[in-house]
């Protein structure tokens, strides 16, 4: 039980951290100042959410470790984040599409996690939910703006959509941990989230004049620690200071 709850909490923490880290890479590089600030703000929300999950994970683990130990001293294979969030930013359009595909899942997921029998996860979800609403509003509006924009912007986001599509299945595919914790009403029933995600995505894509890829095959693995090559590079950058000078603070 403890092991499964830890695995689940770490997945939420890792997913939030890695997405936050990816978004933070845009700081100082976005196409307009407002979007630079938006991306940084959203990154900050995710990193804040990650801290809440990590603090809880450390408590569950009960080995005297801190949130920092969990973020900085675990290897690639121990990371449980979904693959979608670790994929490289690409251009602004690709980052936007990745964010939208994730937000469309994240909002109903948090909404359901609020009712978890695990009180701490429910509390973190209730807190994060309010932030996730703004994220989805922002990313949807941008997907529509770019999709229904110029021929050039349309093509870019359509390409991004085609490329990222195969990583979306994992978001709502329950694994062993999900199924186990669902029976205790701790984990969210992902089978309920899938149709909500599909509806949001199809509504927005329609307005954006984009077409949903027909590809059915989905890449999974993140929840079990099997990642794309991208994660190693992220961790190398994110962890190098703590790995070189363990426990340094500033």
């Amino acid at each position, binding site marked *: 039980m403890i092991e499964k709850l830890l695995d689940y909490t770490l997945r939420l923490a890792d997913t939030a951290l890695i997405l936050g880290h990816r978004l933070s890479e845009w700081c100082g590089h976005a196409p307009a100042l*407002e979007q630079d600030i938006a991306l940084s703000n959203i990154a900050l929300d995710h990193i*804040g*959410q990650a801290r809440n999950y990590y603090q809880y994970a450390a408590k569950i683990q009960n080995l005297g470790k801190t949130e920092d130990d969990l973020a900085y001293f675990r290897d690639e294979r121990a990371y449980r984040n979904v693959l979608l969030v670790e994929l490289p930013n690409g251009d602004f359009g690709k980052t936007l599409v990745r964010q939208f595909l994730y937000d469309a899942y994240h909002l109903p997921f948090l909404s359901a996690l609020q009712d978890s029998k695990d009180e*701490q996860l429910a509390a973190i979800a*209730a807190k994060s939910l309010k932030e996730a609403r703004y994220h989805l509003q922002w990313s949807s509006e941008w997907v529509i703006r770019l999709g229904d924009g110029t021929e050039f912007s349309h093509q870019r986001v359509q390409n991004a959509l085609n490329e990222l599509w195969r990583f979306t299945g994992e978001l709502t595919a329950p694994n062993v941990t999900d199924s186990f914790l669902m029976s205790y009403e701790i984990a969210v029933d992902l089978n309920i989230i899938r149709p909500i995600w599909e509806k949001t995505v199809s509504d927005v894509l329609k307005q954006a004049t984009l077409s949903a890829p027909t590809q059915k095959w989905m890449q999974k693995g993140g929840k079990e620690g099997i990642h794309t090559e991208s994660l190693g590079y992220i961790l190398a950058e994110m962890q190098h200071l703590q790995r070189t000078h363990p426990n340094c603070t500033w």
Partner: protein
Amino acid sequence: MVINQIWQLLETVCDPEVPVLSILDLGIVRDVTEIKGQLVIQITPTYSGCPAMNVIEMEIRATLWEAGFKNVLIQSVLKPAWTTDWLSENGKRKLEKYGIAPPVTASGHVGTLFGRNPEVKCPQCGSKKTEMVSLFGSTACKAFYKCLDCLEPFDYFKCL
């Protein structure tokens, strides 16, 4: 009463990002209690990643330390989640005077995906002819607006 004195001291601690607001105006102090000679102060974060929270915690410690209270425990409470509804009326007036439009409606407003953006009054000239420039502003808690009458840009403290 010690507890009353603590509340008065907390009134002097300000939000580092919006210095006209005390942390009581902001509504983030949930409870102050004394347990076995230790002061326990419960605060609730505004946004999960708000960098001001660490600073606020340090300021609380420093303020209480100076007043002679050295045994202080600050707890972060997530539930119930902070909402802009907890901003005091006085706090909202101070915000507007400072040039930041206070949150317009009760939380839950942005519940719908394409909820229309709220009608925000320009804190400079009072016109309601304003438009949103960006959903995300200079800090996590603000959106960026501009007034179509006086043409001044301004921050809007968005509903959460």
